[in-house]
């Protein structure tokens, strides 16, 4: 565990050195400028739109970091040949790989936490600046704590995307890894179509294969409750628990597969 921790901290320090956290500045500027401009364009829907924009930005910035840093975690060490100096050290390959993963997870969690604070700060300002009669028509307060449910599921989604990016990077080039990770993420939003494929084709074999893929491909659509929280729609605790358990299980599966492939990889 200590070794994993050391690697993880180094990955985090490297991401700070690589100015990954600069995206926070972009996020803050985007939110603050949007909160000024959007009121003029949206017929009084500024708080809803800032919530949508904030949650979508947390997700998009996180995805970009997860994919484009995740694919380089292993590749960079191979490219710089530093892997040859690292592997002979008293460190197992799985520790190296998991350390890389948790390092990026740490970067992502800190990113999301700061962005969440910035979003709540902007919303708190908007709440304070809005007259009582307008606030009464909102489905939920601007600083509704229920938004944290959506943010928690975004974090889980990012953990899974990072694991998938790392998995592909253990055996593929960064370009291919990025393509494949994005492809899996996109396909993961069309799961519903795969499930209903049987209703549109005559072949029962094709329908069974489609259903099989439906059960196996990560269901990224399940992690998206942004729309519901913004409209103060109820999200059952059971749904949150089941989706969280699904996410964690899938992450464990992908990480284990990555460890198996990485352990068998020949670096000579």
């Amino acid at each position, binding site marked *: 565990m200590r070794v994993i921790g050391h690697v993880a901290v180094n990955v985090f320090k490297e991401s700070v050195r690589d100015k990954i956290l600069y995206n926070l500045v972009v996020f803050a500027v985007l939110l603050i400028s949007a909160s000024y401009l*959007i009121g003029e364009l*949206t*017929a009084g*829907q500024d708080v809803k739109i800032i919530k949508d924009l904030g949650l979508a930005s947390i997700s998009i910035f996180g995805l970009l970091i997860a994919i484009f840093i995740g694919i380089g975690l292993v590749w960079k060490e191979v490219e710089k040949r530093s892997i040859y100096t690292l592997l002979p050290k008293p460190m197992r390959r799985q520790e190296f790989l998991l350390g890389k993963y948790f390092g990026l997870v740490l970067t992502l969690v800190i990113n999301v936490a700061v962005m969440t604070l910035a979003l709540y700060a902007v919303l708190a300002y908007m709440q304070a600046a809005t007259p009582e009669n307008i606030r009464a028509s909102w489905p939920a307060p601007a600083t509704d704590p229920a938004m944290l449910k959506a943010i928690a599921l975004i974090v889980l989604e990012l953990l899974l995307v990072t694991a998938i990016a790392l998995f592909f990077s253990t055996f593929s080039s960064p370009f291919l890894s990025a393509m494949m990770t994005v492809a899996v993420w*996109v396909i993961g939003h069309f799961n519903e179509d795969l499930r209903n494929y049987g209703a549109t084709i005559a072949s029962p074999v094709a329908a069974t294969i489609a259903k099989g893929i439906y059960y196996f491909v990560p269901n990224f659509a399940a992690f*998206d409750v942004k729309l519901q929280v913004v409209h103060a729609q109820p999200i059952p605790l059971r749904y949150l628990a089941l989706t969280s358990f699904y996410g964690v299980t899938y992450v464990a599966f992908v990480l284990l597969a990555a460890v198996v492939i990485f352990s068998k990889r020949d670096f000579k």
Partner: protein
Amino acid sequence: MKVHPLAWAALVALFAAIVGLQVLQTREQPLGLPAGVSTNLLYVRAPEFARRAALSFHALAADLYWIRTVQHYGSTKLSTEANKQYDVLYPLLDLTTSLDPYFDVAYKFGSVFLAEEYPSGAGRPDQAIAILKKGLQAQPDKWELAQELGFVYYWWLGDYDDAAMWFNRAADMTKAPDWLRPLAAVTLAQGGNRTSSRTLWTEIARSADADWLRDQATFRLKQLDAMDGIDFVESIVERYRARTGTLPSSWADMIRAGLLRAVPPDPTGTPFVLDASTGRVMLDPNSSLNPLPNRERPL
């Protein structure tokens, strides 16, 4: 490598030329399209496609379409073009509400944009009804949407049976306010009258979640006050005729007769106009309250 000074000069000259030519081009008359051809462009019209393409960013995509809806409505309303068209208003609202089925304001304001008479709005109460019914499919217990439906039937179509039916349906829904049931009864019994109109607009003014909608309701309430004022002044004109056997030729006649103390104004302060040949009282053509609703359509 050192850059030749002439290259810098050429760069500046070309940049100035680009800007200058663009200025000239802007001053040119646009070639334009034949009258009646819409220039409103909408790349995506299929809501199902938009839903899929938005992946997990449905709400944000809905917001973008909503901003476009507001811009399209606002710019078309303010446009001075003779053939201005609201032709993408309904598709934009359809996309917005398909991407975010809980976007109540898109249903509520959207129905106002659609139902408002041309050229202030699209003049399509049928589409306003369609978008509100879509909203009720997504949220069957949203009384505000049922009330808006009743309002479209009441105000824009003059269909009081359907209006009363929707006010009643709204009253049956959870959290519906008390005033809906009596409004339904009055609408059914008496059709459109100023009392029920006043109730509707007063509630809209009270509960409106946007300034422009509140302003609209305040404007309609002033129109109703003006109509009350006209009725009142016409009754005084009638008294003058009963007393003198002739119609007054001007307000001055009625002031001299002691029936008025001054020229009566409408709620904006603009004096009413007296038609000396018929005894009818009307708004000054310059009054901002024109046109009054009951002159063009029943209440």
